[in-house]
């Protein structure tokens, strides 16, 4: 078989050459044809090619580094060449892509990630070594004989069971290993490797949520509550100082959903916590689905690939409820740029490298698949240095009742999309184990690169197959691979799979690896036999691979064979219901941390420092890289104002081109407050998500929310105590605001253990994502100031509780403030949101912005810079009990908005807000500066130009 080396040079980028290795029964004229028609842009590039089989090679003039993906890692470029060659009828067997750079010096940035890429240095004399390197890259993998191993666990003692769990990366505890042992003692045989892996994946934290479904024994300090609203905190009262909770998800989340969903306005709950995504009826014909997922550990090891496949995964969640993805969201938690990594043992990636890789990974997948990324957040804290968080969300759209969930005995099991390789093995268990300084070596195969085009083709096919009603059930192939997807679909019926039918990327996978692989871009359908040929033809026409791999057989068992030999033979009931419930100890101590020392600075400097703070500064460098216009639904975009550079509060999407109803997407999080009390943090996060959607005109009484918990090791009682309080907060917030949770996800074990055994947990982090009904998108509003002479009103009360406020990171605890966590007044907050919503829908509001990080001062600054208009703000009129100008300027009290109202609408606005705390505090001015005054003296004068400059600090 001939092997050719093609070198493509772009003269404008002389320091990076692209190399292709192409093998096959090829003639030189075949290669010339590929080079001319496919591999080279005749205007911008030049190419040369060499026949390696004849020992012909280019001559190096200087030492170079050549970077290639490791065998088995997705190489999309090479895959493209294979497809292109097929379209040109050129018989290509294998293709590999390499990049060539001048040899790296100490000052050049790192160009490859050793986990997924090889980097080889060659000097001009290394010709023969290079040929061997190239030949190896395109050589077929060495065949391995397939092997089904029995794992002798029946004879093991407790120590042996734990060792088996650790060594096999099973992430099972002793109780669970004993249960498995007991099962196999009953059936009088040892498990196969495939069975043990199947159970480990199914029982993993990722797939079975054993912490959230566990029994929690909680003790903690008492929480004083204001008398007027104590009854609005039932879950907190239930916790008291000690309580036992049977399942946080049932007690705090599902219970809240059951209580609130029936009263939801306009949206009707169709599915919560059951399907791959939460589903709501939007109107008589349409349902919307929403899911947010995390991909934290993979992103810590390979930021691009981790985030890339994170976005790919959550898009498939929505596809898994038969919906077309119409919008995406992303929220990142990173360590501060240029953070010192010396305490982490040298294996943690530099924080900027993580941030760049994550953003690029999300951008690549979202843009290529054609889904607008319309809402998100970025939060920086040293707690995320070793364990960044990457949340990706997707909203889907489907006709009502088009998502079938009726697998029947006799349905064919069809795998569609990408091929199966050795990638992503142990993803579900990997996410359930803390990161350590050696994780990269042990779990490297859990890291992958996505292939958005294969997934886009999958979306195109699923929508057609759905509309033709060709399948009876569908699910995404995610964590746990085929084992989880088929195991869950066949839970009530039983399934039989022959693994030799599964299409593979390359030969040599062991049967258990095929069964467990988490290779991306795959979905599984249950297809009634009479529809099979039509589905397969539909797929063939669009070059989507689809293969029947087995049958849902009515046996009640999960049986998997390889060449007829048994790989898995398990009772479905044991697999899905056999896991012993976990008992977790949870403790909580009220925060007693000291307030940071007051270090005075002048207000103008504080405002500038806040605006350029990484948690507040413009996200434009990230947002501009995302296509937020595609599909044409973006009515309120992530950037707003006269120059489209002000921060939008939430996204508004028009659902149908000819109706004026829509949805708003917002999010809230406050991990900086986790250390003070996760209960109030949860309330504040829900409040923020709702503030955001209300600010753009959506209806807070027609809103559903999602929870995403990222927490440390639940076996540490303090982490578990915080988590319990956070879920209690979710419950009480949902009840008070009337917003049901429709989907959620937990990512636990977000801890890092260094070589010395020192543990670092992330700050307990809760992301609340809100999807709210928008009654009329033409009455949406943005935060940019619109016209000089308009009045500025504050809505809501300002409190002196300022623990965790961003201003304290700049000047410490400010005078007149209390070092307490801000609390949401549940007796007031829901009606505040509702009244403001009605004022906006009546068209009484010219601009609206919620007060969040940095408080009033930052809200004024952001509105002014977005509108390129000035404002006079008189702090005297602000509704507050605090005399402190610092509290008035920078408090981050919840449930507050700054609202611009034209003189013509002032009377109607104040009437509409009569039952809600509000006050006129200023006026919009033409003069390009913001002036804050208090008690007749000027507190600060800042020019719009200086605000723009400060806000546009580059966070990447």
């Amino acid at each position, binding site marked *: 078989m001939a092997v050719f080396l093609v070198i493509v040079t772009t003269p404008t980028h002389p320091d990076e050459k692209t190399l292709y290795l192409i093998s096959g029964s090829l003639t030189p004229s075949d290669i010339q044809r590929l080079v001319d028609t496919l591999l080279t*842009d005749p205007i911008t590039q030049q190419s040369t090619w060499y026949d390696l089989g004849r020992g012909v090679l280019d001559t190096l003039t200087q030492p170079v580094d050549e970077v290639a993906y490791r065998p088995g890692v997705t190489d999309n470029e090479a895959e493209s*060449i294979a497809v292109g060659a097929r379209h040109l009828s050129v018989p290509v067997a294998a293709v590999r892509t390499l990049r060539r750079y001048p040899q790296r010096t100490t000052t050049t940035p790192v160009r490859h990630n050793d986990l997924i890429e090889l980097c080889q240095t060659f000097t001009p004399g290394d010709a023969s070594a290079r040929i061997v390197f190239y030949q190896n890259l395109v050589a077929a993998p060495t065949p391995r004989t397939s092997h089904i191993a029995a794992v002798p666990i029946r004879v093991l003692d407790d120590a042996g069971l734990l060792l088996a769990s650790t060594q096999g990366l099973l992430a099972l505890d002793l109780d669970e290993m004993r249960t498995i042992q007991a099962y196999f003692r009953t059936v009088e045989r040892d498990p196969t490797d495939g069975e043990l892996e199947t159970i480990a994946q199914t029982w993993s934290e990722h797939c079975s949520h054993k912490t959230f479904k566990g029994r929690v024994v909680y003790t903690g300090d008492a929480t004083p509550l204001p008398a007027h609203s104590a009854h609005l905190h039932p879950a907190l009262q239930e916790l008291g100082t000690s309580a036992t909770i049977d399942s946080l998800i049932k007690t705090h989340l599902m219970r809240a959903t059951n209580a609130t969903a029936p009263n939801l306005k306009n949206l009707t709950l169709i599915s919560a916590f059951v399907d791959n995504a939460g589903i709501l009826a939007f109107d008589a014909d349409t349902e919307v689905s929403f899911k947010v997922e995390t991909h934290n550990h993979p992103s810590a090891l390979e930021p691009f690939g981790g985030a890339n496949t994170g976005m790919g995964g959550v898009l498939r969640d929505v596809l898994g409820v038969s919906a077309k993805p119409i919008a995406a969201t992303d929220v990142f938690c990173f360590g501060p740029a240029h953070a010192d990594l010396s305490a982490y043992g040298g294996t943690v990636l530099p924080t900027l490298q993580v941030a760049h890789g994550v953003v690029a990974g999300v951008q690549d997948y979202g843009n290529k698949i054609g889904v607008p990324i319309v809402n998100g957040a970025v939060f920086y804290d040293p707690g995320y240095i070793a364990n960044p968080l990457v949340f990706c969300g997707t909203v889907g759209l489907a006709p009502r009742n088009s998502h079938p969930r009726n697998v029947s005995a006799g349905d064919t099991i069809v795998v569609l999309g990408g091929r199966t390789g050795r990638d992503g093995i142990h993803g579900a268990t990997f996410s359930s184990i803390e990161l350590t300084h050696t994780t990269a070596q042990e779990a490297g195969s859990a890291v992958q690169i996505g292939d958005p085009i294969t997934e886009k083709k999958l979306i195109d096919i699923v929508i057609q197959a759905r509309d033709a009603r060709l399948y009876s059930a569908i699910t995404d192939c995610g964590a746990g691979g085929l084992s989880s997807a088929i195991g869950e679909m066949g839970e009530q019926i039983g399934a039989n799979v022959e693994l030799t039918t599964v299409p593979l990327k390359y030969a040599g996978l062991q049967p258990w690896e095929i069964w467990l692989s988490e290779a991306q871009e795959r979905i599984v359908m249950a297809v009634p036999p009479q529809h099979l040929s039509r589905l397969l033809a539909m797929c063939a026409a669009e070059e989507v691979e689809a293969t029947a791999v087995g049958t849902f057989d009515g046996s009640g068992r999960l049986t998997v064979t390889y060449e007829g030999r048994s790989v898995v033979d398990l009772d479905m009931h044991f697999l899905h219901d056999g896991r012993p419930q976990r008992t977790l100890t949870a403790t909580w101590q009220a925060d007693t941390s000291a307030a940071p020392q007051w270090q005075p600075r002048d207000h103008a400097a504080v405002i500038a420092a806040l605006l350029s703070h990484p948690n507040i500064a413009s996200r434009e460098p990230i947002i501009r890289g995302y296509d937020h216009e595609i599909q*044409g639904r*973006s009515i309120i975009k992530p950037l707003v104002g*006269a120059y489209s550079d002000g921060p939008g509060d939430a996204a508004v999407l028009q659902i149908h081109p000819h109706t004026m109803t829509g949805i708003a997407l917002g999010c809230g999080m406050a991990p900086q407050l986790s250390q003070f009390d996760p209960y109030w943090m949860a309330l504040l996060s829900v409040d923020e998500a709702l503030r955001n959607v209300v600010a753009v005109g959506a209806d807070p009484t027609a809103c559903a929310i999602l929870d995403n918990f990222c927490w440390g090791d639940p076996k540490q009682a303090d982490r578990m105590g915080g988590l319990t309080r956070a879920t209690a907060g979710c419950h009480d917030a949902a009840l008070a605001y009337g917003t049901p949770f429709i989907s959620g996800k937990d990512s636990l074990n977000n801890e890092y253990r260094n070589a010395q055994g020192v543990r670092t947990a992330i700050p307990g982090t809760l992301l609340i994502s809100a999807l709210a009904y928008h009654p009329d998108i033409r009455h949406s509003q943005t935060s940019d100031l619109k016209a000089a002479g308009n009045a500025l009103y504050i809505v809501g009360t300002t409190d002196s509780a300022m623990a965790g406020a961003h201003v304290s990171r700049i000047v410490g605890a400010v005078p007149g403030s209390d070092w307490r966590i801000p609390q949401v007044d549940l007796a007031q907050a829901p009606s505040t949101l509702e009244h403001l919503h009605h004022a906006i829908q009546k068209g009484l509001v010219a601009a609206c912005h919620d007060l969040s990080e940095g408080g009033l001062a930052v809200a004024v600054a952001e509105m002014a810079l977005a509108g390129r208009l000035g404002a006079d703000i008189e702090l005297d009129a602000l509704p507050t009990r605090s005399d402190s100008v610092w509290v008035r300027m920078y408090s981050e009290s919840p449930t507050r908005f700054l609202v611009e109202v034209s003189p013509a609408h002032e009377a109607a606005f104040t009437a509409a807000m009569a039952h809600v705390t509000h006050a006129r505090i200023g006026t919009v001015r033409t003069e390009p500066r913001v002036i804050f005054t208090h008690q007749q003296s000027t507190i600060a004068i800042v020019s719009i130009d200086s605000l723009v400059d400060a806000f546009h600090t580059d966070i990447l």
Partner: protein
Amino acid sequence: MIPRVIIVRAAGINRDGDAARAVTMAGGSPDIVHIGRIIDGSVSLQDYAMLIVPGGFSYGDHLGAGAMLAVDMVHRLGDEVRRFVEDGRAVLGICNGFQVLVKSGLLPGATLAQRSASLTHNASGRFECRWVRLAAGATRSVFTQGIDQPIEVPVAHGEGRFVMQSDAQLEALAANGQVAFRYIDSDGQPTEAHPANPNGSRHGIAAICDESGRIMGMMPHPENALTPWQHPRWTRESRQQGDGLVVFQNGISWIKHI
């Protein structure tokens, strides 16, 4: 009669639906067709008056944006496309579609398989999504006739810088009325400066057409600027319709007369 417009889709094409919405609003009748169905003969280009190659990342754009779909156009659909163009019908390529038309040789020369230009990486080196202002000027394009005011539409691309082998070729193109749209700055002048020009194209080139004016390619997305509420500043300033709709209205009204 409502003119029929074929919108071709392929792996990774993702603005086909947006283009169809635009065609419908402009009074045309769009069919979105997978390229495989034209190649296998079950759909014929000749049943349509206009061909749109929409935006996306066809086949992933790993070998240069639009390159793989251009291979399809030249080597798998060559005869159909040639006939369609020689028959005097209209072709519009948007974003990835523009890249496909250029890389298949249909632009600027209407010479399938013979290339004289390319669209390459933005000068910034980054993919960018932002709204831009375009001026039509004096051009042969049937899609830009009567556009005498600047229009505002979004761009979303990483490889939008139009290049030819020499500046002389670029100038000849401009002199021949083949530059259909240019990016303009706040003074209304064509610009090469970021961000008004998102990719650094010489002379602010945003769209070009062939000599007949019937084949046009453009990087910006008029199909995402159809209604007043898609505009980024609609809460500040009002408009009757999206600025991009006129491009499709022009195209549809022109094909009504062939």
